[in-house]
């Protein structure tokens, strides 16, 4: 059986680089177990040392947030409470609001992008 082709992303380096023994580490196609990108809004970057995006692992959104919290303590609590996702934030898996998917149980996989945005809402009361 031929294994399924790995889908190349625009960010992948040309193949020649991967065989160059002088290529700097981290710039090749070496295996990276943590491959879900999570984009962090300005207001929460205090938890990520200012980083606009971080990477994490997990098979569901809940697991991913747990994994992130091990390196960015406090981040998870800004996103979820006992009842689930906080109403003050929107969390998207690729292009979909996870509220319309499976919420915290939404499956995630390597190559996905999770985007966090603060919900913009309010009212006269």
């Amino acid at each position, binding site marked *: 059986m031929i294994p399924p082709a790995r889908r190349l992303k625009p960010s992948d380096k040309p193949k020649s680089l991967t065989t160059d023994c002088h290529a700097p580490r981290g710039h090749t196609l070496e295996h990276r177990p943590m491959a879900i990108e999570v984009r962090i809004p300005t207001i929460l970057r205090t938890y990520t040392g200012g980083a606009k995006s971080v990477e994490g692992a997990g098979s569901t959104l809940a697991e991913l947030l747990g994994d992130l919290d091990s390196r960015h303590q406090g981040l998870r609590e800004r996103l979820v409470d006992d009842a689930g996702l906080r109403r003050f934030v929107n969390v998207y898996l690729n292009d979909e609001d996870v509220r319309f998917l499976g919420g915290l149980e939404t499956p995630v996989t390597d190559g996905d992008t999770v985007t966090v*945005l603060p919900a913009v809402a309010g009212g*006269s009361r």
Partner: protein
Amino acid sequence: MSYAHPMLTISSLLYEKIVAHARADHPDEACGVVAGPVGSDRPKRFIAMLNAERSPTFYRFDSQEQLRVWREMDDRDEEPVVIYHSHTATEAYPSRTDISYASEPGAHYVLVSTREPDGCEFRSFRIVDGEVTEEEVRITGESDGAAEAGPGEDGAAAAE
């Protein structure tokens, strides 16, 4: 960040677009953003947003539309300089709900009240860590031909 002389500077054209949107959606609350280049503090690009709540007392950006608009701003090196919404029966001042949701410390939160059929309250605030600071609104003439003596100049000062 500190704002020694907090002020919103906005063109009369953008001012009028915000007011017109608030009037058009009355009695429901209207909402939207004005994007501008990152770090410029200048609102340039008017984006009316859907109020997913379609309510006279509450607003919420539609989450899918928000993702699209936020990505577009990102691609254009813009940020939400102004986040506006209307109050349709109360004054143009941030409510407790507004304050609890406010999460863009760099944005000017503009409130428009449409409770009076004529005349218009148009006020701007910073909301940082739950603290509200009203700021001056300066309307400039760079209006691409909008009427000079429009409701703008009077409306800016018309609180209460």
